[in-house]
């Protein structure tokens, strides 16, 4: 299945690139998307198989995330072509619409402390949705991104039952005008892909981009396996946690301030 990386471009002498390429076990080749390359680390070549060398993750600083800001949610809906509960030209009731990411408002019952944060697929290291899926449609990529292979999804919805984060959705009606990079269809499960179509092209997820450019800059995306990445630095320097850390799912999405 795996094809050798393409050899279109000679390796650059750049230190970071060589270090990266060596680590990835490559001799040559990297993305054509150098212009939008990630700040830390390099995107893989387009035809290179993803590997566990990387572990993509997002750090959400809940302290910075303002109540009422939905830049990440709006960007996700726009990028993924999700009608969402706000358009209303579909048949589904609001509680039947997919929401791959949502802003949750929290208030501590005892202290009154309030905060808000986005919740999406947590891209667990040990994802319950993957364990329960009878056909293997729900799976985890080598780089930690949890996806639904809709080609083998039979729509049993066991993954939605199993997800501790309420992050999986079920498509209740036929979908038209899908984005070509984001197939979605009636009768199958779906959820946040961490914008895998962007990551594979060396770009950041839409929510993270929007959070930085329109929101409060509360989200940091990157390769947590790369000690020199911004996210790895923040994870090292700050107290962070995960939602329902007690379950031991070890999410790729981590939070500060919860």
């Amino acid at each position: 299945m795996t094809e050798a990386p393409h050899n279109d471009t000679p390796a650059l002498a750049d230190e970071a690139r060589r270090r990266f390429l060596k680590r990835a076990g490559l001799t040559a080749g990297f993305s054509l998307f150098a212009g939008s390359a990630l700040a830390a680390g390099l995107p893989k070549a387009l035809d290179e198989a993803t590997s566990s060398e990387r572990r993509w993750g997002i750090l959400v600083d809940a302290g910075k995330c303002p109540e009422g800001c939905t830049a990440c949610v709006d960007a996700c809906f726009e990028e993924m072509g999700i009608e969402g509960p706000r358009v209303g030209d579909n048949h589904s009731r609001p509680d039947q619409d997919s929401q791959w990411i949502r802003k949750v408002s929290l208030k501590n019952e005892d202290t009154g402390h309030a905060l808000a944060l986005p919740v999406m697929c947590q891209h667990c290291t040990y994802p319950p949705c993957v364990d329960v899926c009878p056909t293997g449609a729900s799976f985890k990529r080598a780089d930690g991104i949890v996806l639904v292979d809709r080609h083998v999804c039979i729509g049993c919805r066991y993954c939605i039952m199993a997800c501790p984060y309420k992050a999986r959705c079920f498509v209740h009606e036929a979908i038209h005008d899908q984005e070509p990079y984001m197939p979605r269809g009636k009768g199958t499960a779906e959820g946040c892909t961490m914008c895998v179509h962007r990551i594979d092209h060396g770009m950041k997820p839409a929510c993270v981009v929007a959070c930085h450019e329109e929101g409060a800059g509360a989200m940091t995306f990157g390769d947590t396996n790369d000690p020199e990445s911004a996210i790895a630095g923040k994870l090292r320097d700050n107290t962070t946690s995960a939602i329902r850390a007690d379950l031991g799912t070890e999410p790729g999405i981590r939070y500060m301030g919860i």
Partner: protein
Amino acid sequence: MTNRIRYHTIDNSPGFWAIFVLFLILSAIGLGAAFYMEHHGHWVTGMSQNVVWGTPHVFAVFLIVAASGALNTASIGSVFGRKPYKPLAPLSALLAGALLIGGLAVLVLDLGRPDRLVIAMTHYNFRSIFAWNIFLYTGFLVVLLAYIWTMLDRNVKAYSTPVGFIGFLWRLVLTTGTGSIFGFLVGRAAYDAAIMAPMFIAMSFSFGTALYILCMLAIMVGNGRPVGDELVARMAKLLGVFVAGSLFFVAVHHLTNIYGPETRGLEAFLLLDGGIYTSLFWLGFVLLGSVVPMVLFFHPATNRSFSMVSLGAVLVVLGGLAEIYVIIIGGQAVPQVLFPGYEVSSSFFDGSVAYYAPSWPEVLLGISGFAMAFLVVALGVKVLRFMPHSLADPLVDAHFKGKADKARGGDAAQAQTA
């Protein structure tokens, strides 16, 4: 020989065919409902992102649980060697298979992509209890076929005990698998518990035996074949014990959840202020589905009356459906706790009790599961010799010491005991 039980197919009668056509129509309506849901998508149902398993799952799980329990009657005869249950065994195995087929049909027809069912046969993830269940269910059908063969064919009768034993073990594992569908859900407090598996086994004893008694009485009495009072009373008391057993497991599950502060909110919802779920639990499952039937089954004034025992069995079935509804729908209606200690709200209904009302297509599909099961039973008893000509007490129990004229249900009884 008057003291030997003979097995006959069911005679042609307008009643039989009327019931057969009724089941056929109900099955067709269910298929139509499934097509309607599949064609439009699940937005036409009461299901949502919060309650993804709706009424079809309630019926499907009930039928699958009852299927394994329906084999009890045969197991008591073959595995535990209780002679009076032996003539009851062929129908027991037939009903078990029929209920499983009905339940699986409902489950499969409610899939988001039922057209891709073949994928469930070609792609397996063996970490999934669902995937294991596919083998447990199909394997159970194979074991049942073999068991029925050993019972109906004299040439292989010797194998009926070992095959029956395999069937008994298989059904225990099968229901463990069904219960574990819920028991393995670590992310939902309403399910995540090892007791789900034994609780489902206890429920299977109860639901399956209730359906067995109903089917047996309907076929025997409906065809004028005698059934002994003692036999019915014996089965009623057995069912009463099973009902008590499932009540016990349900009670222990709730008590454990009440004890832990983490799950007290969940229990307060289900047992006190959950509206329909609270009513279904206390009135449906506990009172009408357990206490009333137990009185009917244990009281000597009622446990020899076919109509009272039938009433009790119907109540057990309805109460069982109510309890499965509370488990499946109620368990999803309770908000998932992502942030313990926090009040939460979101556009995605975090922190709020999910609304669910069954839609007609869901209910019709669910009911058609029963119809399909009974259709299989009707076909079976019509073409193969599943049913004994008589279940009069002196016939089924050599040690019967009761009044000889107790057998009722048809002219044959009178003829025999005269």
